[in-house]
């Protein structure tokens, strides 16, 4: 398996597992590239990948806001009018309604965001938001290991 294929394989499997732990219909990942641009990286299914691509193209959406504000963004229904929703993004993603975007932090900076989503609109509960934050930590662990950086260095 090439490094790129290995990365994609591990990220997709991690996203699947994280969505399952939270009880969400899916999860998707956006990372900041070397030029500080948000890039769609992966999703548990086609809806998740479309959600990230739509945000990358349009430069707006819960994930983009989460990155910009370095805080959780809770969207109960993506189809709602702004500022409650993102109808432009919703139009490109079909099956995604409720989205929870959690910033991913590594070494005190935001490196991306993790989106959890459901296919029915609903209010995100505080316990789900807290859990999303902890699961984001695990996503960062995986990403760091894939990048061959800390946590596996600098501790000798």
């Amino acid at each position, binding site marked *: 398996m090439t490094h790129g294929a290995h990365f994609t394989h591990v990220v997709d499997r991690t996203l699947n597992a994280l969505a*399952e732990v939270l009880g969400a219909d899916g999860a998707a990942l956006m990372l900041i590239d070397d030029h500080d641009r948000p890039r769609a990286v992966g999703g548990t299914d086609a809806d998740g990948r479309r959600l990230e691509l739509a945000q990358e193209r349009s430069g707006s959406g819960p994930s983009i806001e989460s990155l910009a504000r370095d805080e959780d963004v809770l969207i109960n229904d993506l189809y709602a009018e702004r500022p409650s929703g993102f109808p432009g993004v919703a139009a490109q993603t079909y099956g995604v309604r409720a989205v929870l975007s959690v910033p991913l932090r590594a070494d005190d900076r935001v490196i991306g965001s993790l989106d959890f989503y459901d296919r029915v609109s609903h209010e995100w509960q505080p316990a789900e938001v807290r859990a999303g934050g902890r699961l984001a930590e*695990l996503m960062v662990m995986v990403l760091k290991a894939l990048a061959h950086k800390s946590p596996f260095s600098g501790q*000798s």
Partner: protein
Amino acid sequence: MTVPATGIVHQLERAVEVVDTLFGYAGAGLMFVGESGELRYLVATDDAGRSLEGAQLHVGQGPCMSTYENDSAVTSFDVQTDPRWPKLAELLHPEVRAVAGVPVRLGGEPVGTLNVYQSAPYHWNESDVRTLQAYAHVIEQILTAAMAAEEKSALADQLQYALDYRVVIERAIGYLMGKHDLTAAQAFTGLRKKARDSRRRVSDLAAEVLAEGAGEPG
């Protein structure tokens, strides 16, 4: 760059702490099979939970060992009274009551177990088990990524050992089951005890058993 095993161990500690706080269990732990073939805690959130390791090693059976040996989820409503492991209770911390374990796999093969416990009897439901399995999958991906990043770390060696030798150990277990009419658990326990008593690795003994079996008249 030499990367210490403590790096990945630290990350796994954090991952197990998260499972503990996320689900509100009394404790959680991560066990791996070592060179001796015995399940050892790599990470445990508390001493009560850690008593699971010693108790199971002593009596040669228990929920975590069953999880590993059967490569499937095992739950116990109350491990203190569970008739499957009658000798376990006297060695366990009294706060360890309901126990659930799921296998942690690498390359599709079990290399350890993720265990959680509650301090009161509890009926684990399908959703509990499914969520725990999903969490084990996250840990598997952390390990998979770490293995690729640093193949020489002590943990990677330990995990690789389990991967390399599980096949020969399983074949020896199968051989002993057929020859002596044993269950898989009995065969594994006997193999492990003999290895410990003779200060040999389980994999070496398993290879010997298979070689002896191959030399017997058919």
